[in-house]
């Protein structure tokens, strides 16, 4: 792993590259383009950049209109508002028509830190995942976020891409592929399978090393494509280990754990648990401190993995 970098930087790098590759790419922003960094797109492509102010419902529906006019809009603001405030516009305005709208959810997770509960998107994966036609990508680092943005150019229909504000370790080299419906097995392990997305992938890799020191072989799977989910990889690993621990910077309900549990319960009921936010709101504080308070760390994964392995079922 190399230096720390926020995934939002990867999002912006991806936008700029997408804009250069495809003249149909347009960006719809909501008064946070300086915060996300997407203002850079507006500087390079002023005609293709629309800052609509603080109006998430309008932004989402305008993006639908731009897609209807033949463009590929990337509409982004903080995930809590993009996925939450504009949810029904995403549902009926975008997904129902299966439009090529790319939705960027910035500041995902509790890792936003000091801004506190109002700005920490902990439900966005859940509410985006339930929409028909929607794909949900939760990249682990800035390289993968850039790759997700570029990969979305070749996908049909709406795509939600969740990224964060807090610097995270690089897990992937530049240009690692992001394929909808494909997870990445980052570490093999016969005792337990750690399934993670977003900023929790690096934590899971750390946890895997710590567990190895304790004689526990923990495999690590990056589920960058939360929807469609790589069921085959999940079931292969689950049948190998018989224990699945999901780690995500999101509510424990409805997100990656929900997606994984839905597959396991219907096809291969194995022991499973989650390291996630336990059905409560976040709080202000430095990201690292808040992550510790809410048990979103490698040590929390280690502890829960050990407990899960002791559990009967």
């Amino acid at each position, binding site marked *: 792993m190399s230096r720390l970098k926020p995934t939002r930087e990867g999002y912006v790098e991806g936008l700029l590259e997408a804009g250069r590759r495809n003249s149909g790419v347009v960006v719809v922003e909501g008064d946070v383009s300086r915060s996300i960094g997407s203002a850079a797109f507006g500087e390079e492509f002023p005609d*293709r950049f629309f800052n609509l102010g603080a109006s998430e419902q309008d932004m989402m529906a305008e993006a639908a*209109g731009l897609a209807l006019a033949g463009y590929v809009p990337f509409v982004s603001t903080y995930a809590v508002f993009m996925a939450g405030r504009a949810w029904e516009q995403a549902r009926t305005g975008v997904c129902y028509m299966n439009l090529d709208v790319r939705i960027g959810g910035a500041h995902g997770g509790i890792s936003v830190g000091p801004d506190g509960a109002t700005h920490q998107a902990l439900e966005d994966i859940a509410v985006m995942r339930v929409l028909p036609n929607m794909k949900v990508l939760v990249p682990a680092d800035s390289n993968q976020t850039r790759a997700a943005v570029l990969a979305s150019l070749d996908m049909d229909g709406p795509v939600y891409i969740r990224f964060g504000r807090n610097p995270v370790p690089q897990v992937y080299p530049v240009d690692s592929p992001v394929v909808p419906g494909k997870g990445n097995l980052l570490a093999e392990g016969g005792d337990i399978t750690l399934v993670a997305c977003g900023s929790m992938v690096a934590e899971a890799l750390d946890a895997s090393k710590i567990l190895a020191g304790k004689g526990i072989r923990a495999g690590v799977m990056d589920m960058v494509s939360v929807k469609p989910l790589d069921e085959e990889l999940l079931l292969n690993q689950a049948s190998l280990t018989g224990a699945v621990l999901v780690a995500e910077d999101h509510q424990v309900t409805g997100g990656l754990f929900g997606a994984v549990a839905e597959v396991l319960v219907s096809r291969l009921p194995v022991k499973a648990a989650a390291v996630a936010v336990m059905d409560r709101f976040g709080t202000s504080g430095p990201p690292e401190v808040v992550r510790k308070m809410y048990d979103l760390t490698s040590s929390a994964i280690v502890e829960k993995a050990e407990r899960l392995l002791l559990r009967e079922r």
Partner: protein
Amino acid sequence: MDVAGMKENARRVRLDVLEMIRAAGSGHPGGSFSAVEILVHLYWNVMRIRPGDPEWDGRDRFILSKGHACPALYSVLARRGFFDPGELLTLRKPGSRLQGHPSMRDLPGLDASTGSLGQGLSIACGIALGLRLGRSGSRVYCLLGDGELQEGNVWEGAMTASHYGLAHLTAIVDRNRVQLDGAVSGVMEIEPLVDKWLAFGWDVVVADGHSFPSLEKAFEHCMDTDFPSVIIAETVKGKGVSFMENTHLWHGRCPDDGEYEKAVAELLGGER
């Protein structure tokens, strides 16, 4: 087309709507009838369209933001040649392309799927932004209900249209003064309406929404302005059938046998 011909089209559309809703067993006659002349005028006299080539790039776009008035739009599209009028009676039935609210992926001639109030104007703005970016000469029209103007999303879109100077966008408000629960003024007042649109930077023109000459004048005005334009079309909810007029009771109700016969007789009967 001359006014007599347009009136005949409007009568045909109202009869279709009545028959469709009757066959479906549900639907929205009140807000469909108030919009008939607006839709007939748009599709016969204003919009550049090719019914045989519904996705023609150079077409003008129309967004029915008040999607519940779709029986009237379906009738207009069928009578204009987008699909066989024989299909109209499948409205709201399983497998039908004529969904309870417009679904563009099902039916040719629709420029967006609508029905969730408040979204249509923003979608229309987005299309208008895209058309301008692509240097298209097409115009965009969007029909809103007056009760719909209570949705905050409408005014976000209104700001965007004005901020980006979308002069090729025209909204029409079907000002029938009645919504599902009762009079708009009693449920949630939206006046002063002209001042509101003016304050949002729009060019505003008021028209009689059931008079073709008045609509013609209003739409001509909108062709020649530097701002997004809105036509406040004064209409009558349930227009054309005496017992459906000016009441919320026919917002979303299907006529029984007796009511149906009486309504058809009135529509066939005269000028009104």
